[in-house]
């Protein structure tokens, strides 16, 4: 249990080797991530970050440990440059460097001293602390609201894109239709247009 400096240093190294992915679809599993990143580098370890606080339909997040810090950089550069699809389109995943607080098994930081105390009611700080508590709650509510807003925006964008896709689909279907039943050819001949023959 004793926090040891070496242990922590080893952990910090691991953090540097790790890349954090979010915007992952719930269908993404460890093997999906492994195969997806295969093309760049070997994957040492994959860990999903559980979402205990909600909202429940937040995208998944995962920590992926790679070979080295250099690989992390490469992967991030690649995924940053081109939208990277994992197990679905068109919403891309994002990659960022991991930070220590993302790990649930992180060791205790060595040599840190936490202090705490109960405040007495007549302490002038008591009121301030009380306000701080309220502020904390308010902030938590703000965060929850922000999540909601973002989810709504995502939903909106998704709906809009679905609509676009549907239209595109219809368009292609239509084109395919006239191509297959030779309407296009007939018309081309009629208007004296050159249509490439399939």
């Amino acid at each position, binding site marked *: 249990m004793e926090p040891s400096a070496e242990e922590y240093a080893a952990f910090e190294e691991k953090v540097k080797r790790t890349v954090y992915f979010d915007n992952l679809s719930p269908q993404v599993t460890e093997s999906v991530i492994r195969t997806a990143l295969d093309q760049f580098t070997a994957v040492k370890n994959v860990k999903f970050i559980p979402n205990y606080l*909600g909202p429940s339909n937040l*995208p998944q997040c995962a920590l992926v440990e790679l070979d080295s810090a250099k690989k992390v950089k490469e992967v991030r550069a690649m995924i940053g440059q*081109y939208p990277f699809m994992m197990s679905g389109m068109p919403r891309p995943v994002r990659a960022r460097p991991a930070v220590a*607080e993302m790990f649930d098994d992180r060791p205790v930081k060595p040599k840190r001293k936490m202090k705490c105390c109960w405040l007495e009611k007549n302490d002038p*700080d008591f009121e301030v602390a009380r306000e701080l508590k309220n502020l904390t709650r308010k902030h938590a509510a703000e965060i929850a609201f922000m999540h909601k807003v973002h989810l709504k925006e*995502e939903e909106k*964008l998704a709906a809009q894109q679905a609509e676009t896709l549907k239209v595109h689909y219809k368009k292609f279907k239509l084109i395919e239709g006239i191509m297959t039943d030779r309407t296009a050819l007939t018309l081309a001949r009629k208007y004296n247009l050159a249509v490439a023959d399939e």
Partner: protein
Amino acid sequence: MVEDSKGDNLEFKWGKKKGFGGKKKEVTFYESFTYDGVDYTLYDSVYLYKDDEPEPFIGKLIKIWENGDKSRKVKILWFFRPCEILNFLEGYETLDNELFMACGEGLGLSNINHLEAIAGKCNVVCFSKDGRNPHPLDEELQNADFVCYCFFDVGRHKILDKTDDKIAGIEVKNIFNNLDSQKLGGLLRLDLDGKDVSAKVTTNNEAVALSSEKNNQLLIDKLDGKRYDTGDSKPSFGEKCTSSLGLKDANKSNDGLNSISRDKTLPLAKEKENGVCKALAKQKSSTKLSHSSRDGLEMTGNSKTGGNAFCLAKIDSEDTVGVPDRQINKRLVEGKASEKEKYGVSSANKTNDVHNRRNYDNAKISNTRPNVSMDNTFLKSKIDLEKGGRDIVGVPDRHFNKQLMEGKASEKEKYGVSNAMITNDVQNRRKHDNDVKEVPSKKLKTDTMSTKHSADKFRKESSTASPNVEHRLDYRVMEVTQRPDIDRSKWFKPMPWEERMRNAHEQGKLVLLENLDPSLTSSEVQDIIWLGFKESCTVMVIQKTAESSPHSGQAFVIFKRKEAAESVIRKLEEGCFLMSNGRPLVGSFGLPCFPEKKPIFYGHHVNDHLRLQTQREMKDAVSTSHCSQPNNIEYDMAVEWCLLQERADKSWRRLYQRQGEELRKLKAKLNVKI
């Protein structure tokens, strides 16, 4: 009973042999042994200490042997404390002192330990409804340190109320309350004791001689083999004093006790008293000894006053023995400075006062012992002593000798065991130069241990009491250190956190803490909870994601009981628990979010018309992951998502920036910076 000043060589003696084993017959099995003055028999329940464990393990001796290389081993069938199998209780309501006996097959059933790991006896009474279990008497229940109703199957992780005929190869009838074997044990012990007596007496005498003091000792032998040695004399303190439950009771009742240190425990010996030297010396003030062992220590220190300073509940020479089912020996000795006293009580030690020239009749003592031990049923007895009394009051059903010597008025002593009152004449001019130093180091060690132990107990009690009794909050700044009791449920793989959280949530034991320093780890939060609330719990710090607040870390905490969770939340609500960097802790009932079966995820489109076809394709596809190229509609849409993500990011950043600003302003108003 020769005390080694180094304290390393605890007394040890083998008891009855059971047989030999091993390839070359080099292993000797035993049925009993004496260790550190305590007699142990097969199937006794014992405490086992481990260095870094605050609370002792409890187990049953199911095999005792000595290897060819003289190493002494015991095989222990474990009892589990409810906190050790918390995850598998499944709503089973446990009593405070309930234990579960291991059964089945698997890790945690039994272990082989060094015999030296045994720290004392423990009285576990089994209440299993199993027909094979002799039903315990009510009085046994009262005296029990722990009770055991159910079994815990270490293989299946289930609580059972019945078990097979054998546990770890041992017939259950041996494991249940084993009345016959107890008696047997008692007798055996007697024998053993008998051997010891002479040695003891000698030691005593020596000690007495060393300390030129008077010793009056009361030895009480309990039928069940407990001996109590009450004496005001110091030497006797250190060397042999037995504390009994009766004594404990007596303490509670505030009666004056001199010093009781226990050197022998009976088979049923209560753990609490195990290895505890209790020295209860009441100095004129009638201090309540709620924690006898701790007080005892102090008392030993103080015991200078020794016999003089006993509170006499009754000054008239009447002693009431108020502990019902205990045998109590009382001795009243009044006499001149040249007092003679004979105390013959079972394991009776006689103390000689050098000054007083007491005579001890060894033979007598040894004779009396068996009687005493046989007779269980001493009830209260009253002994009236007249002051200046010169009588020997013999209570018929007591088998102990009392002798009162007439003497001058200069000294009067009465030693009452249990409720014992000791009257000291003010004129008593005894000097007790008991120093703690004189107490053999071994005992000292035991003392410390017992103190620690009782402190643990105390803590435990206080935490149990917390729902009802409001803790006095400690307003000092405390540094977070590792809490002493770490959940010891490491034997079994813990249930997945999610499931535990779900159960805890349903049972109202789940608390969400906010405003933690985000860099804290789960174990640190556990320490903080321990420090602030004296509650142990399991903590899971919420892992940070890219979107979580850099200002406030959260953690889900599972408490052991609903009341604990409620009290923590209430205290956090009413008071302010300030942590480093000016963070008051915020707590509320946790409302965890559990993954849905079919989570919604926006942004991945599958064309309905193509679905059937796609499914087949997806099955064949090795990976659907790829980088999007800027020449198709997918890319356009992906870029729209990227834009949205960027915007979200920015909004988070701005939100947290503003929140940080607000917090900073408010924190600046804090005077105390911790």
